[in-house]
């Protein structure tokens, strides 16, 4: 009986399949030509030594990658970047979840509040950097001024004098821009929780904190996983904020700044590219961990 099926159905199936390919063809063409091919080319180059100041393009195998492991600057950059990831992910998550909880509560003027919330994320990053550079300015910045006039500090504070505070400040700026994304993702997750669950929990005897811990948190876990992976990828690609606020300073140099310096300042092109590929892989792997561990296990529909 299988034969009837084979005889009658190949055509429409093939047709549907072809149409499917036709629909995705433009997307694949553009992605292939403008992203995947260049990526492949960069990966290829990272096994060579491409340095315009030297003649030729010798094959060096994994040397670039091996050298990266022993480069103290690179190690510092990695450690800074991991701190950025830690800080921004924590800040974005804590603030994002709080903002989402708040928005979920607010009924009056919610759409305006939402507009205000996502505003920072909509601004061009260049403008973002200008605004914050001006706010953090150690001499005339509004932050120092405000803290001074409130009596929190007694003299102008130099925000970038200590490594952790510098990393933290830069993370705050980055988080300022990216937090709305987390908030929106969490808000979506919150809104998909049936309100009866909270009512049932109330009748079961739960207070606000218990409800958050026992109901809300587990049920937004899959949203959190997505938010976390987003935050992570963006934190790994941290460049603008750190570069504009603190230049090449060791304390705040991110992996992407190191990539830029190696490739575009020191002209050690393949060395820089090898590093950028490692950064990409690292962010993909960490995201995959969230998504596979948290997201997969916490979908309940």
């Amino acid at each position, binding site marked *: 009986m299988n034969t009837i099926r084979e005889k009658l159905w190949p055509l429409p199936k093939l047709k549907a399949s072809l149409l499917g390919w036709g629909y995705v063809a433009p997307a694949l063409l553009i992605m292939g030509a*403008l992203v995947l091919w260049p990526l492949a080319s*960069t990966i290829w180059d990272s096994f060579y030594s491409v340095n315009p100041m030297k003649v030729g393009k010798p094959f060096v195998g994994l040397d670039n990658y091996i050298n990266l492991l022993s480069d103290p600057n690179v190690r510092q950059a990695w450690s800074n970047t991991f701190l950025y990831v830690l800080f921004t992910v924590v800040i974005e998550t804590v603030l994002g979840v709080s903002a989402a909880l708040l928005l979920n509560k607010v009924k009056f003027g919610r759409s305006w509040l939402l507009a205000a919330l996502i505003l920072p994320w909509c601004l*061009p990053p260049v403008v973002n950097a200008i605004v914050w550079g001006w706010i953090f300015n150690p001499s005339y910045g509004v932050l120092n001024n405000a803290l001074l006039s409130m009596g929190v500090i007694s003299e102008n504070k130099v925000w970038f004098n200590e490594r952790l505070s510098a990393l933290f400040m830069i993370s705050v700026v980055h988080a300022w821009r990216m937090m709305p994304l987390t908030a929106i*993702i969490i808000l979506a997750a919150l809104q998909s929780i049936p309100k009866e669950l909270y009512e049932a929990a109330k009748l079961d005897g739960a207070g606000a904190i218990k409800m958050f811990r026992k109901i809300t948190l587990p049920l937004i876990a899959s949203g959190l996983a997505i938010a976390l992976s987003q935050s992570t*990828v963006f934190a790994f*690609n941290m460049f603008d904020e750190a570069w504009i606020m603190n230049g090449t300073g060791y304390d705040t140099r991110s992996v992407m700044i190191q990539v830029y310096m190696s490739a575009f300042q020191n002209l050690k092109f393949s060395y820089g590219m090898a590093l*950028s590929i490692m950064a990409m892989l690292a962010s993909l792997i960490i*995201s995959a961990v969230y998504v596979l561990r948290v997201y997969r296990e916490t979908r309940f529909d």
Partner: protein
Amino acid sequence: MYSPTLKIFAGRAGLCLAVLVLLLWSIGPVYWSLVTSLTPPNDLVSAELHLWPQTLTFEHYNKLFGATSQSQGNEVQSVWPQFSRAFFNSIVTSVGATLLTVVIAAFGAYAFVRFSFPGRDILFFIVVATMAIPAYTVMIPLYRLMISVSLIDTMTGVILIYVSAFLPLALWLMRSIYQAIPISLEEAAYLDGAGKTHTLIKIILPIAAPGLIAAAILTFLNAWGQFMVPLVFSPTLATKPLTVLIPEFVTRNYIDYGLMNAAGIIAVVPPILLVIFLNRFLVSGLMAGAGK
């Protein structure tokens, strides 16, 4: 026993406070930028903190829009021709990229949801994973490619690059939107005699419109804010956008904070307008996308 009114009141007050903090956090910096752009240069560096400029000035805006402007203390050519051209370029490249991205994503995502063809899921995964690729990683080969097809400093080139950068997000979003549309609508259309493409255009796209608008806003905002790509691929005013022009106001021995903030304020007007007027699409679209 508890007093419900007192509790409600305390809850309300807490809520209001939280809302205020959120507003301060989100809008404060932008507001400060606005204040800066309205403050005379010499007041900018005064140590006192004013929530509103002591003396209001439009000189920074005059510099942007005026017939002449100052640089290094000298009367030089107005920055308006540059500024207006860059503004125009920003609009054209962003709108172009937005339209193209949305069209490609509308069809592509539909295929990823409703058609089965070999390699569908892995392709989708790869496309989405490209969001993690740092710009620097692909910049040089991409530049080589664009040179070889003579697309440097052309709107087409910039638009294509934007599309490649923002397509994954749009595809992801549109896929979740389509997944939420009941398949019976398409089936009803087939039975009514519509082909697949016709169904997509006549039935599904109008229904997915809020999602398309969200994808469009996202793409537009992303394109509008781009810096690295146009820096390399838009060398001249033929295609150079605002984001690349604004930092040029940093001169060698003079940072024109006022001018930069003024230009920045102008540059955020389109995004702010979008957020204010199309916010509900953006949020609903993002939320639909986030649900998956």
